[in-house]
């Protein structure tokens, strides 16, 4: 398509919108609702994944040893566990480190009480490994393997949290996908109807174009442009709304839930919108393109 024809067809796309205001508004509203829902679900999913990731990073297995296990055996166990493919890394806490941590936590204001244990570490048998996993779902398997090892007295894990988080992520993903598919189908159907109305309104123009030798592509282009323009407008509007909604949500979490904020926080704006803006624009333009192609292929034949 030559440059002047491109701009002519683009211009005709806008003319079509102007002539068909009611259907244009209805289509924009539907696409906007669809993109808004997709955006909202995406923001929720991104944040759920963020929370899961944070939780996964903090979920770990703590391993304590039999009292008679020697320092060399503990070192050897550590090396073997680190080599497992399910294990991301292992942190060693010596009895001294454990006692220091305990002192900081419980005798911070009365250090003289702790001094009484200076030469007799009450946590002498509390050396431990903190085992971090590459994936939260490996927890049960790794815990069982650890329990079966010689020299290990106790294995502490948080299985309920792990599976619950993992399951919640999966359910949220499936439910979101189902809702998005339904909304997409409705949007494509409605935009296709809008373009069909446009084709009917401009039937005479299309007929004349065909008689004077316009190509299929030239006749269809204005309608495809119209669909894409509607799709893009329908995507930009909810993005603006989502921007303000998400900003308010972040402010609310920071201001109202500050007591939990160390445990619960939302992804920063830029992290969400960096992904959301291209997805919404491609989605809007895609809905417009597919809807208009369905209508033009069905009703325009040279």
């Amino acid at each position: 398509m030559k440059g002047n024809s491109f701009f002519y067809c683009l211009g005709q796309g806008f003319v079509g919108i102007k002539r068909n205001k009611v259907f244009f508004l209805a289509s924009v509203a539907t696409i906007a609702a669809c993109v808004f829902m997709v955006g909202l679900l995406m923001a929720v999913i991104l944040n759920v994944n963020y929370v899961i990731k944070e939780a996964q990073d903090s979920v770990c297995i703590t391993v304590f040893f039999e009292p008679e296990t020697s320092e060399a055996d503990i070192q050897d166990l550590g090396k073997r566990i680190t080599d497992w493919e399910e294990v991301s890394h292992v942190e060693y806490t010596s009895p001294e480190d454990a006692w220091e941590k305990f002192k900081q936590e419980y005798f911070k204001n009365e250090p003289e009480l702790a001094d009484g244990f200076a030469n007799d570490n009450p946590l002498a048998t509390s050396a431990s490994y903190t085992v971090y996993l590459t994936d939260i779902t490996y927890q049960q398997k790794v815990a069982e393997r650890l329990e079966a090892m010689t020299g290990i007295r106790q294995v502490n894990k948080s299985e309920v949290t792990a599976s619950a988080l993992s399951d919640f992520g999966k359910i949220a993903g499936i439910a979101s996908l189902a809702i998005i598919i339904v909304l997409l189908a409705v949007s494509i159907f409605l935009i296709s109807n809008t373009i069909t109305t446009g084709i009917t309104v401009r039937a005479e123009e299309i007929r004349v174009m065909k008689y004077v030798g316009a190509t299929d592509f030239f006749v269809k282009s204005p309608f495809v442009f119209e669909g894409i323009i509607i799709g893009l407008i329908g995507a930009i509007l909810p993005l603006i709304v989502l921007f303000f909604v998400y900003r308010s949500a972040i402010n609310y979490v920071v201001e109202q839930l500050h007591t939990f904020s160390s445990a619960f926080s939302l992804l920063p704006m830029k992290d969400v919108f960096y992904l959301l803006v291209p997805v919404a624009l491609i989605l809007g333009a895609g809905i417009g393109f597919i809807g208009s192609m369905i209508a033009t292929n069905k009703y325009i034949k040279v």
Partner: protein
Amino acid sequence: MIRLENVTKTYDDNKTHALDHVNINIKKGEFVFIVGDSGAGKSTLFKLLIKELQPTSGDIYVNGKCITRLRRRKIPMLRRDIGVVFQDFRLLKDRNVYENIAFAQRAISAPPSQIKKNVAEVLTLAGISEKYRSFPDQLSGGEQQRVALARALVNKPKILLADEPTGNLDPGNSQIIMDILEEVNRRGTTVVVVTHNHEIVRQMNKRVINLKNGIVVNDIREGGLASER
């Protein structure tokens, strides 16, 4: 320029032949009237020539090329060689005279400079230069048909097909349209006019192909009508 070889057209919903083994040969630069009563097959012939319909059997040649099995994507190129004019003008009501004519050029992606030049040329040929800003509703029937004619000619077609171009016009305006068609033909375009206006046909004294029930019943050569009188 136009050749029909044993062309038959039968519509699916009607088992009778709209055209029945029709053979027609129209040479380059000819001016031909196709006449006949309603249902004679005139409109079917018109639609076959612009590839709006597919013949049931037989072959159609336009400008030396067989269009019977022409691929769909090649149809626009065929139509660029054929200008068409209809009884009901088919002008776009929301565009002025200039835009109606320029529309045909834009549809074939003509460059803007060429559009201006060609539109001015056909406006002059059709004698409606002073009306270029008027909208169709502001024009008489005759003027509207001249705009339609200008639009059909602006892409410089080799063939001009006119389907009852004077059907909605008074004798005065009909004569103006015929004069323009004659001028177009003089400049080298092959002109085919489908009509049942016998008065115009007699006056013009051109070649006349008479259709009846889908069959060519006679083909009177140019000047033949005068000798028949």
